[in-house]
């Protein structure tokens, strides 16, 4: 059992001025001027300069006021990027692929020659895709009762990417509103073909079937090790999340829905009976589990329903990826450290090791950050001694004055870990050159 830190149900100590979307144009210039981590951001996307033109052939696209959308932006270096972002103050920045040419020149090259070559392998997990298994919220809304879905998603996908596929550099990011993104930045991942991307996404998709399928999870007789691992992770959350928070067997409607996925009629009827007899989700689930086990050990013919409890658990909890986002090399995805225009929250990286303590409602929003800088500066006003004393040489970075600090450290960890590898790689390359 994971004891997740209580989230928004409890009143947060700090009384925050609430964010309103109208204020965004006022705060964005400050954010882009003083807080956006350009340095690290560039270090990430330049990938140590191992491949030439990697940064300047990268597509960025901006969403400006009134949903004006400009694609195919590109920058030759960090300075130009900073200048452009600060000049245009985009409401949203998307990162696209690395192209064969500078994206901003795409009109000057033959359309067939202008091709997306590489991109991080990305994943987009969105709470709206869980609407059929959430009893608390629908659509874009999230709350403390459904957020554990994202915790499970991060843990399960992160483990698979690392252990099964051997990818080491994974950046998880809160999307600012109702979901999470993952950027896999290993060289091998960036070079994956479209087919390989969809194969990875398929491998990670267990809940399948649209509105016309009740039973969306089918487990074979032998369960694949990666699913066994996922079932283990779901198990850590299931009691608290599914049986308490979501109360999936709480009333007749709910349990009928949950049990409808059992293929065996007799077993389903037997389960229904147990539901009527017991008084809450937890008791119902565990009594049924016991009964199911007994039937399996006996000679009852329920082979088709052998894994039905796991199937129910996975249908309610297993990550639901938006596979289209992962498949396309050319697909754009919102950049980390954007500000979500509706919530004002910054798209901050999440440390998968501490995913249980990550609370989306405590992610700083843009006006809070701006006030934190002001507050800090007010408290730590440099004492004015003599009028013409030069300002201290090393100014403190503004983000360090705010609650963004923690998130930037997660980001920095991700970038420095990669940099270690590039160093080796760059040495290799220069050695090879030395031979000639």
């Amino acid at each position, binding site marked *: 059992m994971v004891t997740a830190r209580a989230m928004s149900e409890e009143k947060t100590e700090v009384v925050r001025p609430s964010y309103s979307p109208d204020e965004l144009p006022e705060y964005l210039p400050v954010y882009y001027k003083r807080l956006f981590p350009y340095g690290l951001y560039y270090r990430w996307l330049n990938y140590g300069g191992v491949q030439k033109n990697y940064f300047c052939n990268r597509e960025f696209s901006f969403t400006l006021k009134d949903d004006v959308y400009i694609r195919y932006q590109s920058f030759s270096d960090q300075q130009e990027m900073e200048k452009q972002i600060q000049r245009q103050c985009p409401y949203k920045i998307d990162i696209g692929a690395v192209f*064969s040419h500078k994206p901003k020149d795409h009109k000057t090259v033959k359309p067939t020659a202008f091709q997306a070559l590489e991109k991080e392998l990305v994943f987009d997990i969105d709470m709206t895709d869980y609407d059929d298994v959430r009893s608390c919220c629908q659509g874009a809304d999230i709350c403390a009762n459904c957020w554990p879905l994202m915790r499970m998603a991060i843990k399960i996908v992160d483990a698979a990417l690392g252990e099964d596929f051997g990818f080491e550099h994974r950046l998880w990011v809160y999307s600012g509103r109702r979901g999470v993104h993952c950027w896999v930045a290993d060289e091998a991942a960036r070079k994956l073909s479209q087919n390989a991307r969809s194969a990875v996404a398929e491998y990670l*998709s267990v809940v399948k079937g649209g509105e016309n399928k009740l039973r969306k999870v089918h487990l074979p007789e032998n369960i694949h090790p990666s699913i066994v691992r996922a079932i283990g992770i779901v198990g850590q959350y299931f009691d608290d999340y599914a049986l308490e928070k979501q109360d999936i067997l709480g009333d007749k409607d709910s349990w009928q829905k949950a049990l409808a996925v059992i293929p065996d009629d007799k077993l389903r009827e037997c389960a229904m009976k147990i539901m009527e007899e017991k008084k809450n989700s937890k008791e119902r689930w565990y009594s049924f589990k016991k009964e199911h086990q007994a039937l399996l050990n006996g000679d009852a013919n329920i082979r088709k329903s052998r894994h039905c409890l796991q199937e129910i658990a996975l249908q309610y909890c297993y990550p639901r990826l938006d596979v289209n986002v992962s498949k396309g090399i050319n697909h754009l995805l919102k950049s980390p450290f954007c500000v979500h225009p509706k919530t004002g929250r910054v798209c901050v990286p999440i440390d998968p090791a501490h995913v249980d303590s990550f609370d989306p409602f405590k992610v700083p929003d843009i006006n809070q950050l701006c006030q934190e800088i002001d507050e800090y500066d007010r408290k730590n006003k440099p004492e004015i001694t003599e009028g013409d004393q030069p300002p201290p040489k090393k100014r403190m970075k503004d983000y360090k004055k705010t609650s963004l600090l923690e998130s930037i450290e997660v980001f920095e960890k991700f970038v420095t870990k990669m940099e270690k590898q590039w160093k080796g790689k760059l040495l290799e390359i220069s050695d090879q050159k030395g031979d000639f």
Partner: protein
Amino acid sequence: MEFGKGKREKSQTGRKNRQKRLAGDDRNKAYKHRLQFYSIPPTENISLSEFEEMAINRLKVLKQVENIGIKFVKGRNDYNDVMEKELRKLMPIAVSQHHKDEDDYDAKRKDHISHFILRLAYCRSEELRRWFIAQELDLFRFRFLQENKESITSFLQANDLHYKPISEEEKTDKARKFSNSSYGINESVVTHMDFYKVPFTEALDLVKGRKVYLEKGFAYVPHNDLVSIVVSAFRAHLSHALALTARAVPSLEEDNRLLPMLTNISKQYLGEDYSNKNSKTGSIALEDIDSLAKTAYPLCMRQLHSALREDHHLKHGGRQQYGLFLKGIGLTMEQALKFWRTEFSKKMDGDKFEKQYAYNIRHSFGKEGKRVNYTPYSCMKIIMGTQPGPGDYHGCPFRHTDVKLLKQRLASYKIPAQGIEQIADLVKGYHYQLACTKYFELTHNIDKDEVSGLSLQHPNQYFDASMDIQSGKLKESKGGRFSQGNNASGTYNSQRSSGTQSSSQSQMSNTQQSANTSTATIVDEEGWDNFTGEDMEKLDSSVAMDTS
């Protein structure tokens, strides 16, 4: 293109060819194995008539492979039996095991050359390449699986495919994981079987279905599934080669005999191309759509339509599948925009629609971005393409619906109980397109004999057939649209032979043009099978970079 040029000199006919054919030891060297990877193009000279004959023969084989694949589940016994029976007639080398290699020379040579001729014919568009690759792969897979262990080993050696089994220790170590990951393998089997460790990108088919054990980026493939990695290597090889060929064909020095023939060969593969039905555009009134949905839509589209009317929204997969179908039945872009706007704006403001959705609609009509005219989805693409997820209504209702639910729905559409059972049986046997055909027959009150030729391959074909019946045109069109897909003999396009001989100038330039434009459009296709698309992309961009 060596191969193409070889044929340009075809004027020196028979005699020289026969000289070039090999004898004795050389013959065995030329083809080391019955099964081929088709790595090296043929270089001998052949006559035009032999060229055409070989092409038609292989085409018959591939058509048959396709048809059997639609009717039976690949890999099951009935599929294998029918494949064997048909191939024995059409391509004995694909099933014969006991012939001496010497006697096989001619058959191997035919296999070799005919494969390369069809590459020329089927390299010109995404659609053609996809079809060709799919059939060649099925044929290759079937043949590969006929071979015994020694034969496979020698095949792999002959083609430089080296897979080294992992050590016994590693195997014992992971036995449990292997047995849980791969189908039909228990721990005792593991000890007797070789396992190969390959990068996961070489075993994508297995990865996709979670049918192999993965660790740190490597897939541990049991000998039983070796076919999967060999086939995927074959696919990669073939799709890359086709991309190269597609670039080479337009610049082929040619004397007007070959290209028209190739074009005609490639035209014979399916039926109508629903992307260019300009004649029909504008023939449907928006007001009629609701009633057409009930009378003339296939079930997949009817379902999308009613979901749209109910929710005033469809997710991406649904918009693509339904939107392109609407284009195919003849909606103009203006009509399409109006149609979607009317429905979506019940739930969102018009402004949001214009910004988020209108672009995509114009895009699908080829009026935005790279200006590709997208083709409506075929049944195959719908059945094999992206599976619907939560909130989705796209896909094939026969493939992607719980049988129980499907029965209920059919009952609500007033399909007689007996018919529903027949459909359910077909679905259980994985015959989704036949189930759809049955549905068509039941909803159009056709006695079975009358449309026995109908083989549904495309939602728009369904719609057209339905409209024809409703307007009483059935009889005239019989044997035309209705028999397509079943026609494996390659005779239904009557232009074929005359076109080949005449090879007029205009045909020639058409060919060139279409070859050119197809290379330009391939990369834009929203490829579901994008082996070729990707190769093209890489290729195009690398060439462009060279020249810039």
